[in-house]
């Protein structure tokens, strides 16, 4: 489902964010990406999302060579994947309801279906009472849940989440984890999740890939957080 072949990414300022990364993730897998700050986790997410183009190598998601997509085709590709951004990226002038509805509008669903689905989603991420609030009126954790809701709204085949529990307390984190696991099992959605939360990784053991200075330094099937000195 996700394939990275000899992928390197360097920026104009000379930073090598990823170096020769090889990675294969099968359909229906649930994988953690861990690593210290600045190790290239978000860069990896942006390559998968098509926002960045690899300097070298190939990024393939759901049979699409993401780095080779034409600019105008990138949004079409994104309809197959859901992305939870580290910086949320909610539309500031739209309410929570409208933000989630927007992702469904652009793919051309009809009003009734959209409304039903958004209600469902709001319930899943426990934001029913915030439907009419604007992003600026929400706490960090609430915005985060709105973003998760938007990412899963159109039942994507692949869900890529950059620190989806970064702003949540342990209880809410567990709730979100339960939600993601449910989607993973019920819809066979492939999930790739970046996280800093060692407790969460230890409690819900899954395949864990560790990045450090742009290299993959560990890829452990049974998981558990790798602690640094």
């Amino acid at each position, binding site marked *: 489902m996700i394939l990275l072949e000899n992928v390197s990414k360097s920026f104009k300022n000379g930073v090598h964010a990823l170096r020769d990364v090889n990675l294969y993730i099968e359909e229906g897998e649930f994988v953690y990406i861990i690593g210290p700050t600045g190790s290239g986790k978000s860069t990896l997410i942006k390559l998968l999302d098509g926002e960045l183009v690899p300097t070298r190598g190939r990024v393939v998601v759901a049979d699409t060579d993401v780095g080779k997509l034409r600019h105008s085709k990138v949004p079409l590709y994104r309809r197959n994947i859901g992305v939870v951004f580290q910086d949320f990226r909610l539309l*500031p002038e739209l309410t929570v309801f409208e933000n989630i509805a927007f992702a469904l509008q*652009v793919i*051309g669903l009809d009003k009734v279906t959209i409304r039903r689905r958004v209600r469902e989603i709001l319930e899943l991420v426990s934001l029913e009472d915030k439907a009419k609030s604007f992003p600026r009126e929400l706490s960090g954790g609430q915005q985060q849940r709105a973003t998760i809701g938007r990412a899963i709204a*159109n039942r994507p085949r692949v869900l890529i989440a950059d620190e989806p529990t970064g702003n949540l307390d342990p209880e809410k984190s567990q709730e979100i984890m339960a939600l993601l696991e449910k989607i993973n099992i019920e819809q066979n959605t492939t999930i790739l999740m970046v996280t800093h939360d060692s407790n969460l990784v230890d409690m819900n053991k899954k395949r864990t890939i560790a990045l450090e200075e742009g290299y993959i330094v560990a890829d452990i099937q049974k998981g558990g957080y790798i602690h640094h000195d």
Partner: protein
Amino acid sequence: MIEFFRSLPVHFKSAIQGVLRHSATAFSAISAVSVTLILMSLFMILTGNITKFTRNIESDFKIHVSIDALQEGEDIASLETKINAIQGIKSIEYSSKDDELRKLKEENPAIFGMYEEGDANPMRDVFIIETTSPESIESVTQQLNEMEGIKKAEYGGDGVSVMISFFEALRNGGLVFVIALSLLAVFLISNTIKMTIYARSTEIGIMRNVGATNWYVRIPFIIEGMFIGILGAILPLILTYFGYGYLYDVMDGKFLSSMFVMEEVYPFVFDICLILLGCGILVGMIGSFMAVSKYLRWKR
């Protein structure tokens, strides 16, 4: 396609929100359109009337054909038939040299009074020819000049043709000016909308993030540009409609002399208003299309 029509109401809503939300910048874009359209209207009124003047003058145009000594076995009637075979001739009229001299004597007895009719008459027999359209005057004249038995064919006075070419130049100059002006307006609108879009470049990026195609992102902005064009056209439309009517009344329908008859108010102003509205909408749409396309490229 179904997707497109389904999304139209949403686009209209977001376009109206766009204009309202950025009312200050929208206002400056609207003013840019207004100024351009007012100047455009002035030039259209000017060129419209010039065209009318020229047509009036040109319709007075007649070709003067002086006949050489008649060829053997030919008379006036057969020459007339030969001339009539030329394309673009509306009427042909014969006037003998004595008739010509009499006309001149009537107009100016002091100078021409000394000439005698008959053999001593210095004038020539002529045909006076009217063409079906002013445009064909030149080619008809040329063909006449190449015919046997014709001394010379000419039209108009120098003054008149100078005036016509002056009008022509003015009209062409006006056209160039109007086109340049429209380009300027597109540029101004594009710039103004760029400012409103700049503030929303993050939003555009987010829309693409959740799967909105470039066209989906563009459409509300283009509709917004259309609104700006329509709003900007309101003042020029009013000014044109009432202004020209007023001018026409004050000038009594003519300019300086009765040779320059002004274009009737209706449907002239309707045509201009329609063109202004169309230009406003077009210019607004192109301007915002250019602006939004720039920011679409901002992020992948």
